[in-house]
C-alpha cells in the first residue's frame, strides 16, 4: 500500500523530520487560500500514486497568484498516467543549494533492510542505481538490533554528504529507519532532502509504502488505504480479498495461485492476445467468490473475452465446477464469452458437470488460452 506524499509527510513531521510548511487542497479556491497563507514561491504537487509526477506536469512552482491559479487549474482534474488528480499539496518552496537521497528498503537477496544515501538526490534514484551505482552508499541493517546510530553516520559519510549537514542527514535517516520498522514500511525514502543556503536540511518529498501483509497491526495506516485507492476495480478487489492487477489488454483472466495466473497471462501474450488483468481468486472456488471474480472482469470495459483457469489441488474439480455453474447461472446474461479449464483433482468429473450453455470448456491450459484469445479477437471485429 502506497501512502500519498501528504500522508507520509504528516508522519515524518510527527517523528521530527523537518518538512516544508504545506496544505492539502482539492479545489482551485482551496489552493489559492493555501498559497495565500504559505506565500511564494509555492509548489503545487499532484497527489497521485504515479512515479515521475514532475516530468508529467504534475508539479508546478508558482511565484505569483496568477501562476498559482494557473497551476491549480492545470493540475487538478488532470489525467496523470491514467489517474485523475483530485488533490494537490500546496507547499512552501525551498531555496536549496543541494539535493540528496535518503531511503530504507528491504534487500531481499540479503534478507535484511538496507539504508541508502546519495548526493544525487532529486532525480530518479533507480536510474542513478543503474548508471552510477557507486553514487549510492549502502548499509545493511541487522533487523534484530535495528539501525545503530553509527550506521546512519557511516553511510552518510560514505556517500559524501557535505560535512556541515552529515550529522543532520544521519539523524533523518535513523528516524526514517525507526518509522520503517514501527510502521511496517516496505520502502521509505526522502528524495530529495534539500540543503538550504543556511545548511538546514528539509524533506522536500516523501515516499512511504507499507507492507500489505502488516496492515493488520497498523490500524491507523490501514484506514488511509481507502483514500489511497484510485482505481475503482482495484478498490473492489481489495474488498473481495482478491489479488488483482489491472492491465491494458482485452483478455480477462481468472485463476487460482499467483504463479499459475501469471503463467496464464504469459500464455495469452504468447498466443498473440493481450491480458486485461491479473486476478487470483486464491484457494477453493466457492460460488460467491467466482461470482465476484466474474463481476470484476465483466465490469472492466476493456475485456472482450475471459479465460477461467483453475487447478484443483486439495479442492476437488467437481466442486469447483459446481461453483462456476452456480455463479454463472445467477447472471441474466453472460456478457462476454468465458472459456473454462479445470485441472487436477477430479478434473474430468468437473469438466463433465460444467454447464456448456454458459461456458466453453477446454482440456489443457494451452487450448483454453488460445480459445480465449480467439474469442477476444472475434469480439473485437
Amino acid at each position, binding site marked *: 500500500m502506497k501512502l500519498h506524499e501528504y500522508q507520509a509527510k504528516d508522519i515524518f513531521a510527527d517523528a521530527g523530520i523537518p518538512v516544508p510548511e504545506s496544505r492539502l487542497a482539492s479545489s482551485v479556491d482551496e489552493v489559492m487560500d493555501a498559497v495565500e497563507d504559505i506565500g511564494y514561491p509555492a509548489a503545487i504537487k499532484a497527489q497521485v500514486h504515479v512515479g515521475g509526477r514532475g516530468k508529467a506536469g504534475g508539479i508546478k512552482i508558482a511565484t505569483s497568484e496568477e501562476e498559482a491559479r494557473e497551476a491549480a487549474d492545470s493540475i487538478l482534474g488532470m489525467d496523470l498516467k491514467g489517474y485523475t488528480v483530485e488533490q494537490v499539496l500546496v507547499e512552501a518552496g525551498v531555496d536549496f543549494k543541494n539535493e540528496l537521497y535518503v531511503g530504507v528498503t528491504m534487500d531481499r537477496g540479503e534478507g535484511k533492510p538496507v539504508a541508502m544515501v546519495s548526493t544525487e538526490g532529486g532525480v530518479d534514484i533507480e536510474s542513478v*542505481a543503474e548508471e552510477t551505482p557507486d553514487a549510492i552508499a549502502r548499509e545493511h541493517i541487522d533487523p534484530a538490533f535495528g539501525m545503530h546510530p553509527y550506521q546512519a553516520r557511516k553511510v552518510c559519510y560514505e556517500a559524501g554528504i557535505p560535512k556541515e549537514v552529515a550529522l543532520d542527514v544521519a539523524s533523518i535517516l535513523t528516524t526514517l529507519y525507526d518509522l520503517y520498522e514501527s510502521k511496517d514500511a516496505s520502502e521509505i525514502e526522502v528524495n530529495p532532502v534539500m540543503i538550504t543556503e543556511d545548511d538546514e536540511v528539509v524533506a522536500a518529498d516523501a515516499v512511504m509504502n507499507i507492507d500489505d501483509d502488516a496492515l493488520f497491526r497498523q490500524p491507523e495506516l490501514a484506514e488511509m488505504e481507502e483514500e489511497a485507492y484510485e482505481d475503482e476495480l482495484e478498490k473492489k478487489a481489495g474488498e473481495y480479498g482478491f489479488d488483482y492487477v489491472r492491465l491494458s489488454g482485452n483478455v480477462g483472466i481468472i485463476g487460482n495461485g499467483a*504463479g499459475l495466473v501469471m503463467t496464464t497471462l*504469459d500464455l495469452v501474450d504468447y498466443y498473440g492476445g493481450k491480458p486485461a488483468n491479473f486476478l487470483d481468486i486464491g484457494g477453493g472456488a466457492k460460488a460467491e467468490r467466482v461470482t465476484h471474480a466474474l463481476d470484476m472482469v465483466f465490469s472492466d470495459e476493456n475485456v472482450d473475452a475471459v479465460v477461467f483457469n483453475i487447478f484443483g*489441488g486439495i479442492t476437488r474439480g467437481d466442486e469447483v465446477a459446481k461453483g462456476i455453474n452456480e455463479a454463472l447461472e445467477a447472471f441474466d446474461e453472460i456478457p462476454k464469452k468465458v472459456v473454462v479449464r479445470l485441472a487436477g483433482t477430479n478434473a474430468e468429473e468437473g469438466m463433465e458437470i460444467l454447464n456448456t450453455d454458459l461456458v466453453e470448456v477446454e482440456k489443457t491450459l494451452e487450448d483454453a488460452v488460445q480459445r480465449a484469445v480467439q474469442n477476444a479477437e472475434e469480439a473485437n471485429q
Partner: protein
Amino acid sequence: MSILVDDDTRVVVQGITGGEGKFHADQMMEYGTNVVAGAVPGKGGQKVHGVPVYDTVHEAVEEENADASVVFVPPAFAADAVFEALDTNLEFVVAITEGIPTQDMAKVNKRLSETDTRLLGPNCPGIITPGEAKLGILPGNIFSDGNVGLVSRSGTLTYQVVDNLTQRGIGQTTAIGIGGDPIIGTSFVDALELFEADEETDAVVMCGEIGGEDEEEAAKFIAENMDTPVAGFIAGRTAPPGKRMGHAGAIVSGSGTGTAESKISALNDAGVPVGDTPEEVADHIESFL
C-alpha cells in the same frame, strides 16, 4: 530416494486445531506422513485425528521425538511459531502460512542464521516425496514416484507442471515449493544442491517467477556445480513493473531488476532450456531422460 523428507520423518503440526491445520494434518496422514504430534498454545492434552496436541513445540518435540514441523498458524502469529520451532533445533521446519509481514521474516532470517535448522517457506505449498510423505498442502494424488526433482516458487504452477509430467508417465523424487515471499528459508540454490547430491534424481524442473534475483543465482549455481540436467520455467513475462503479482515476492522493480527476461537469459546462459509453456518444460525433461 528423496531429499529432506521421507516416511521416517516425524512431523509436528503447529496449529493443528485450526481449520487449515486440522484439514491438512488429516490429508498428510492419509498420504502416509508420520504426523506424531500437534502443537497449539492452550490446547495441550487434546487429540486431533488421534494425534496428541501439546501446548508448546518443545513438549511436542521432546515427547514424540519429532524432527520436523509444519506451520499452519495465522500470519499474525506465524513468525512466533517459526521462532518457537527454531528454538527446538528441529532439523526441518515448513512454514505454509501466507501473509507474514516481511519484517517479521527478516528477523526470522537472522535467527535462522544462528541455528542449524532448515526452513522451507513461508507462503509455500510445502514438500512431497511421492509415495512416502508430504509436509504441506500439495495434493498428493497428482504426484507420482519417479526420478525428476522439482523446485518452484509457486503452488498451482507446480501442480500444473507436475500434471504435465505425470501424464507422460514421468514421476518425481521430491517436489519442493520454496514459496512466493521476498524472504524465504530454502532457496533455489539450496534445493538444487540437494537434488544434485541425490542419486535418484536424474533431472530437475525449476519453476521461477519474476522478482528478486534467486533465479539468477540458481543459474550461476547450475553452471558451476550441477551435472544433473535442469529445465526451467519463468512465470510473469508480461508483468508490468512495480506491481505485486499475487505473491509478495513477485514484483519487477522499477529499475528493471527481477524481470523474466533477465532470469530466462541467465538460465539459458547456464545451459538451462526454459519452456515458453508448461508443456514445453515437460518436453525438455522428457528429452533428458
